[in-house]
């Protein structure tokens, strides 16, 4: 009884993990290769303080977003592990 249950929980964990990766991966792509490279010209028409917006994403904004993404991912995964009873014992 115990074994199939834990197998099911492991499958849910991995499926949820892939879903979060897809969400955060899309944002990752959008702020760097998207806003910083592919769509930089239209974004540069927008002025934010002394920055053209596309230039700001390429040299500042993408990096700040990356930090938020990693901590957000770490947080949702830790919660998921808690919910499914898959968290590691603290060392």
């Amino acid at each position, binding site marked *: 009884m115990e074994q199939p249950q*834990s197998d099911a929980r492991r499958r849910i964990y991995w499926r949820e993990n892939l879903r979060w990766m897809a969400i955060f991966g899309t944002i990752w792509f959008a702020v760097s290769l998207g806003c910083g490279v592919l769509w930089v010209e239209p974004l540069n028409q927008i002025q934010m303080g002394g*920055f053209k917006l596309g230039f700001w994403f*390429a040299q500042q904004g993408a990096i*700040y977003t990356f930090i938020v993404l990693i901590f957000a991912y770490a947080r949702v995964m830790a919660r998921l592990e808690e919910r499914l009873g*898959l*968290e*590691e014992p603290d060392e």
Partner: protein
Amino acid sequence: MSLTETTYWVVGASFALYIIIAIRARAGSTQEFYVAGGGIHPVANGMATAADWMSAASFISMAGLIGLSYNGYGGSVFLMGWTGGYVILAMLIAPYLRKYGKFTVPEFIGDRYYSSAARVVAVICLIICSVTYVIGQMKGIGVAFSRFLETDYETGLLSGMVIVFFYAVLGGMKGITYTQIAQFCVLIFAYTVPAIFISLQLTGQPIPQLGLGSTLADGTYLLHKLDQILLDLGFQEYTTSVRGSTLNMAAFTASLMIGTAGLPHVIIRFFTVPTVRAARTSAGWALVFIAILYTTAPAVAAMARLNIIQTLQPEPGQHLAINERPAWFKNWEQTGLLGIEDKNADGLIQYSADPVTNELVTLDNDILVLANPEIANLPNWVIALVAAGGLAAALSTAAGLLLAISSAISHDLLKRTFMPAISERQELMASRLAMAAAVLGAGYLGLNPPGFAAGTVALAFGLAAASLFPALLLGIFSKRVTREGAILGMLAGIGVTLAYVFQHKGIMFIPGTSFLGDLPPNWFLGIEPNGFGVVGALVNFAVALGVTRITSPPPDSVRELVDDIRVPVSPRAI
């Protein structure tokens, strides 16, 4: 106290600190030597990773690359590429390799692809990437010494080698981790202090990241002013000048990103934290510490460029007289980083984008960071700090690379492949000897740099992106990819990337052997050689998946291994 004396004191004090840490952090077991015992706090590991990551190139050259060679916006490839990789690392690589819980990257590839041949191919790829990278660090150490301490290049390089030898051979990963934490503090302080001063002087804003978007004393925005001045001088606009094409910028950025996630000396840092959860947060902390420098660098780039132009040309049409040039200008001319030639013999320096009339004939990228404190009239101790910071950046990265190389040799080649019978004590001794040999080898290559040493750091990323990254990713996310697929994929990826680089830059970078010439019209889809890693990675994926379809599937044990590393706790433990 003279500048040289101050510099000796500051650099000497930083070296003494590294040695004290090394003596206190000796490694007593292979686990301590390879992964620092596996109990490093995630924030501490983040700091060590940041120092491991930020090399002499990041510290000394990057602001100049952005501000000068890549003329502003084009340099964004480095900023996004060298930070965006951490998101991939945190989501796709680090947690699973931490769960796997062994010592090296080739070890994982060997186990996942149930093959000693795969392990040996991974070791070869690792050594090719890491050696091209470490040569640049050794040169950085020699150059930093010779510029700041007025020693010759060889003496500088040997002094650096002695320090690395001492703490890397004695302490392995444990010694390297604690010295890297100290080195991070030195280098980040040394980078931000001059940046804060230059930002204050130009914009009145102490935070350089905000100063970049602030107004100058005359009320115009700094970036507008810089755009305008550069256009007047015949350059492209600073905030919009694309490097090559949009596709080239995207490929270059992507290559640096996935290369970051595939470089073994970065990955093994995540083997030192206690849990999978800690591996994720540690990647976040690493990026926080890296971002302090990486968001400051574009501000330094724009501000120092503006400062240099305004020194040469205080008002449009007004030029600096050669015999009135400031002291720092003359000092850096002696090092060959700045050079002027009065082509029209009017006694003035005319700076422009036109190579025929431009009289600032040499303007090295490194000058932006190195001369920054002097241009801003900062006190001697700040200049001395920049020297110590540059050395800390080069030493910490060199040590991390050397550990990756030596553990691949002692653990993957000796213990796991050729001499499985050796005891732990013998392996620890072997790892120390391998480290000693790696330090001496890197020193030799630093003293006799092969012709291709310059500009190879970006190449190391392309090679890692094309060889190790796809093998790791497929190993975690697919249970079906076979050993034949992985081996041929790695060989194809690294092969096609090397071939592309060689055909444009010369075989082994020997000038004259490049049969297609280093010319943009011959570039594949307009992608420059340094940005080709992403194409190599795609080739690797295609070959690995294609070969997998025609080879027999991996054994059940491999499927169990993959299931096991995907979840933080093993099935039996639940």
